[in-house]
């Protein structure tokens, strides 16, 4: 919209700072990448340096299930990686979508309507965020298994992920919805839109930045969550993080393979972030109202 900083442009200090920050932020990840391209013997040696012969061995190990050839250095190949990947994609995507839809509706209700029990709902929602998953694990497993009978299904995992992420989404979106000029909703209502139409056609598109940010975190949690996933998934519905953590042994930490898998595991959420963060744009409500 408006011209920032005019022709001057940011100064060199800005770029210096930016580079420093990038190094700090991405440094460990670059290191991870480098590590993933080394063999263990090199990784743990005192002398290893930045210059080394990269090897794809670790990636082959991590992906052996999905390769068309059988890498010879791999002794035993976990045949479930491909399946886990599909599970992860489904679980993360579905739960993200559900969380966002359900969450922003609830947030909208809490922001725009005054009704009995509003504060209670709002606080209770936040409270559920405060419980560490470690203690929920056993009750959740018990309830899912003995009462709902949805243990071991993707549904079951999705349900708990949606629930886990809801408080976050509800709370964070509330603060974005507050900022949508209420006049727009009034205009929509005058135009004959019901509450749901007002919400989906007018409010939702305007909180895109908030939605995108919330989506990034929701997806991240659903993608990386391990504890509950491990408890609730059976062999067929297991997700990638569960698979990966389960292939870590204490006996010999195979740094290279772990880093390789870590890198691979990070790819989908990074793509998701990349796509979603494009939605974080300025001026969503520009030109809407005057005042």
């Amino acid at each position, binding site marked *: 919209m408006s011209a920032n900083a005019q022709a001057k442009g940011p100064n060199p200090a800005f770029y210096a700072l930016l580079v420093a920050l990038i190094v700090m932020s991405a440094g460990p990840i670059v290191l991870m990448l480098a590590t993933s391209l080394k063999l263990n013997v090199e990784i743990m040696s005192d002398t290893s340096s930045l210059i080394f012969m990269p090897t794809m061995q670790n990636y082959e190990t991590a992906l052996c299930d999905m390769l068309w050839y059988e890498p010879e250095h791999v002794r035993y190949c976990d045949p479930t990686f491909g399946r886990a990947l599909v599970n992860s994609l489904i679980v993360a995507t579905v739960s993200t979508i559900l969380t966002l839809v359900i969450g922003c509706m609830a947030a909208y209700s809490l922001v725009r309507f005054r009704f009995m029990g509003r504060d209670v709902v709002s606080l209770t929602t936040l409270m559920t965020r405060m419980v560490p998953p470690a203690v929920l694990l056993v009750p959740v497993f018990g309830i899912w298994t003995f009462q709902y009978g949805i243990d071991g299904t993707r549904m079951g995992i999705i349900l708990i992920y949606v629930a886990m992420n809801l408080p976050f989404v509800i709370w964070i979106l509330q603060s974005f919805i507050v900022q949508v000029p209420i006049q727009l909703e009034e*205009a929509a*209502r005058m135009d004959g839109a019901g509450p749901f139409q007002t919400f989906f056609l007018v409010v939702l598109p305007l909180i895109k930045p908030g939605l995108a940010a919330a989506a990034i975190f929701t997806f991240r949690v659903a993608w990386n969550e391990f504890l509950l996933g491990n408890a609730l998934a059976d062999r067929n519905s297991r997700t990638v993080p569960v698979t990966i953590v389960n292939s870590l042994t204490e006996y010999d930490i195979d740094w290279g393979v772990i880093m390789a898998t870590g890198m691979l595991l990070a790819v989908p959420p990074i793509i998701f972030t990349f796509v979603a963060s494009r939605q974080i744009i300025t001026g969503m409500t520009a030109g809407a*109202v005057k005042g």
Partner: protein
Amino acid sequence: MPEIVFDKVRKSFGAVEVLPPLDLELNDSEFTVLVGPSGCGKSTTLRILAGLETLSGGEIYFDGRPIGGLEPKERDIAMVFQDYALYPHMNIARNMSFALRLAGVSKSEIEEKVTRVAKLLNIDHLLDRKPAELSGGQRQRVAMGRAMVRDAGTFLFDEPLSNLDAKLRAKMRTELAEMRDTIDKNMVYVTHDQVEAMTLGDRIVVMSDGKIQQQGSPEELFKRPVNRFVAGFIGSPTMNFLDGELHTKDGSTWVQGDGYMLPVTGETGQRVSQVATSRNITLGLRPSSIDPDVTAGAPIELHIAVAEYLGAQSVLVTRCGQTEVLAEIASAHRFESGKVRTFGVATDELMIFDRDSGLRL
């Protein structure tokens, strides 16, 4: 097309009382213009009518049916918001057609209506733009267009032309007048523009501080304001008010004040002569009642300060005693500022107000 009745409608925002109990009737297919000083509660009244604000008390009836609890949607109302409230994420075409799309109107009909209204508003070349890419006046026209495409029973306009140029405004005024005459809708129109109020309104309602001061036809308000407030509010330039004493003697009435003495004739003169002799009043003198031609009425001496050129007319800012007096005269007459000159006053157009209550006598 319902008859709308406000029955003791009250509205307060927290401690701020905006509408003390308000009674108002809007007749079937009437074009009502709401005027009043900024902040007097015009928008609030519209918004209450639309169902966007809850009532703090009282009730509104549509054809006798209370609608206090109805959603805006159920009231069949179209509204132009004072602050536009355009959907920033939709382009202009979609902004205008939103209500129609919700109502399930067919594509072709939507297209047809939007194009027609957009043409009318001179925004047909902007249909693909987003509101942020429009000028202020263009946005206002979109807001207007959004209401005009609709086929509602009641139309509410909240200063819909304030940001348009005179020419376009005249065009829109004509359009609205036509709409008023051809289709059979209730319209409530808020404006600060005297010309709009006078030309469009079947009835003008003058509000002040949430209270209705007077309602009636434009002529009624101009010629027979009930009190000083209305008299001062209707008419531009505004009426001059001069303190003075009213004297009646032998059936003739005159007002004497600081630097002037004017007979009061015409209908007012007759009426006032009935009232007690010798009384402190405020004299109302319209700028248009003052004529450079002394022979056109009773003489008054005015000290000319400035002449404001308005085109065909000029406004003379003058002083009569210590009071500022405006006079509207044809620009053809030239006056030197600083001079004192005698003007003629149309004495049958004078108005007399009670000094304390402000009521017109």
